[in-house]
């Protein structure tokens, strides 16, 4: 509203604001989401960058709802030069621009030498972190989004409770069901989730666990009839069984207002596991908790003993809109974000970048979580559903995750779930052709 009023005033007065600064000095505009890591690290990194480029002015726009602030200008054709914003947000700005093909190809940046260092960006990045659907959304080998920070997501639990009862963290689904029955006898539910949307990391890891990474990619790229396969059915079977162990309060609290109450049930020893990310430690740091409580994180149990387990890894992204004015300066800045200097500043705020040798910089409170990657049986899994042209009325994430609420409450059956997924996947496949 205020912006519109200003525009109107501008029109009435007849002055067109000139954004172009005088020749010689460029203004690089950076927009970032103020996530759990705070805003301080961005100002520090920008100051460090400016110290090296005295003739360059870098402006930072940072907000918890950055989409709302930059979208109106973007619709009017004024784009920020660099955007730090991942996928999976409600406003889905990154996804929208991907679907629109309105993001700059950053493949050349990978071969750029990091400013002030002698290695290229590609050499600094951890193996396997680019080249997946999260960074190459069209699956054509071109990288459009560079991975900024990564964090493991998986099942969070109370280590203390397991120690007190002498329980082992289940390594297979059979052990999981056995533990579910044991815990039930003590009045503890096996499973809960904050909202159904948090099941994303769970499903991605389970799909890969059941059918391997190839099957996972098939699901993510909407292969024909992929939801009719026995693997897909097994995924839904396991999930339906797991949901039958869900805490009775789960669905009633699975909304924007009350989701922390579901998270609280882990702290209160009312439920054993919930899917979540490492931010949970900070998010619930002031919440009351049971004696001896300590956060633990485990990948999903293996489907058969000894088979591979997956740790869905959430990756924030940095990208350059195609409409940005200072693309060259923006690319240099993006390359700088991977320098040792910048990585150190980010790591101090718990924002861990996927660069080689970062493990030593992870602050102690999160070190255990990142150590899971060291396990030979555990693989990192990055990505998400492939982008297609938007299909009206079809939201496969909603169909896959939100239906869990209806499965628990008995409003839908597993067969209906499978059919709806097949239908949504098929529509998206046709749109992606």
């Amino acid at each position, binding site marked *: 509203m205020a912006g*519109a009023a200003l525009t*109107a005033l501008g029109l*009435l007065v007849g002055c067109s604001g000139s954004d172009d600064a005088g020749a010689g000095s460029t203004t690089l505009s950076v927009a970032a989401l103020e996530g759990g890591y705070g805003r301080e690290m961005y100002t520090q990194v920008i100051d460090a960058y400016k110290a090296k480029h005295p003739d360059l002015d870098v402006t930072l726009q940072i907000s918890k709802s950055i989409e709302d602030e930059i979208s109106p200008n*973007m*619709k009017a054709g004024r784009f920020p030069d660099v955007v730090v914003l991942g996928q999976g947000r*409600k*406003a*889905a700005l990154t*996804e*929208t*621009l991907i*679907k*629109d*093909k*309105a993001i700059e190809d950053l493949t050349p940046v990978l071969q750029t030498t990091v400013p002030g260092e002698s290695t290229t960006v590609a050499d600094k990045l951890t193996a396997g972190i680019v080249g997946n659907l999260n960074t190459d959304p069209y699956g054509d080998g071109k990288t459009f989004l560079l991975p900024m920070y990564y964090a493991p997501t998986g099942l969070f639990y109370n280590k203390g409770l397991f120690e007190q009862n002498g329980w082992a963290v289940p390594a297979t689904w059979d052990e999981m069901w056995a533990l579910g029955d044991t815990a039930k006898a003590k009045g503890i539910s096996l499973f809960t989730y904050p*909202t*159904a949307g948090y099941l994303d990391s769970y499903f991605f890891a389970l799909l890969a666990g059941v059918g391997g990474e190839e099957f996972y990619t098939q699901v993510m790229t909407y292969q024909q009839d992929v939801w009719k396969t026995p693997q897909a059915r097994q995924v839904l079977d396991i999930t339906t069984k797991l949901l039958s162990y869900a805490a009775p*309060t*789960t*669905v*009633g*609290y*699975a*909304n*924007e*207002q*009350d989701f922390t*109450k579901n998270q609280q049930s882990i702290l209160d020893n009312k439920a054993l596991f919930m899917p979540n990310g490492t931010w949970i430690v900070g998010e619930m740091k002031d919440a009351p908790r049971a004696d001896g409580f300590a956060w633990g994180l485990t990948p999903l149990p293996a489907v058969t003993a000894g088979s591979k387990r997956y740790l869905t890894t959430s990756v924030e992204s940095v990208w350059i809109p195609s409409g940005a004015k200072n693309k060259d300066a923006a690319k240099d800045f993006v390359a700088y974000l991977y320098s040792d200097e910048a990585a150190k500043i980010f790591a101090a705020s718990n924002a861990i970048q996927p660069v080689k040798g970062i493990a030593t910089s992870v602050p102690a409170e999160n070190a255990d979580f990142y150590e899971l990657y060291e396990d030979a049986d555990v693989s990192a899994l990055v990505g998400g559903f492939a982008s297609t042209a*938007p*299909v*009206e*009325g*079809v*939201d496969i994430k*909603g169909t896959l995750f*939100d*239906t*869990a*609420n*209806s499965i628990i*409450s008995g*409003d*839908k059956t597993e067969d209906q779930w499978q059919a709806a997924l097949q239908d949504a996947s098929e529509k998206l496949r046709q749109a992606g052709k």
Partner: protein
Amino acid sequence: MTTLSPPPAAPATAPSAGRTPEKRPKRKPGDGLFVALCLVPALVLFALFMIWPTVNVFRMSLFTWSGFSPNMRFVGLDNFTKLFDDPQFIRAFQNTIALLVVVTIVTMGAGLFLAAIMTRQNLRGRNVYRFVLYIPNVLSVVVIAAIFSALYDQENGLINGTLRAMSLDGLQVVWLGDQKVVLWSVAIAMVWQSLGYYMVLYMSSMASIPEELYEASSLDGASASRQFFDITMPLIWQNLRTTLTFFVMSAVNLSFVLVRAMTGGGPDGSSEVLLSYMYKQAYTNSSYGYGMAIGVVIFAFSFLVSLLVSRATRREPLQF
């Protein structure tokens, strides 16, 4: 409206009729231009911020567009045909209608009842009641959502807690988790929010009804309920009609903000309403054109309902 419109019409015809030419200052040729110039800024703003966006909604509903890119593809009425095959849209539409009907009837009925009691019965402390009932109207929706989240909490909530304390455990309901109940939980919050506002509106128009009418009728032996239906209702009828139209419009909006703050449309889309579904499609699903088609349906729907309500409630205005 009726008292204001005649005077401007009079001077327009008066000079030509030549009845009172010298009493009124004569219009100079430049006057029209001056008046037009004075009107221009307001008209421009109105056109720019009201008419143009509305026209744009209609135009964009005919395109497939993500909201950002320069590529808009014209698809004619495709977005509308898709709407009627979209079960989630149908459910959102049904929810909106259910909320509209139930919330309107309950709010209007309760508002009228309370207003009648407060104006007709010499209730002690009625200002306090009026104040208390009006407060929800000035609260922000986020606060209301938080209050109701505390009321509806399935374990420690005020409602379920009270039921447990009265050993009525069997009546406990998962207010925001049961798909058959969640919509009514939202409806209760909507009624609570708007009841006070409409009650105050009705109270003010009831207060202006002359006391003699009631005295005369009570001498004739009319009971309080007879007075309500035969005196109060007919005399505030015009007010009732206006508020009804208001309410239809605001209920569509209020249901959206409350649903977004309280349930997010869940569980599994069971409390989705038209506007929240429009938001989901236009932004989260990057289908801006489809979202605008839903917008057009909402526009047409509220327009139609208002028209029907206004037609159905038309009566000869009564004066006292």
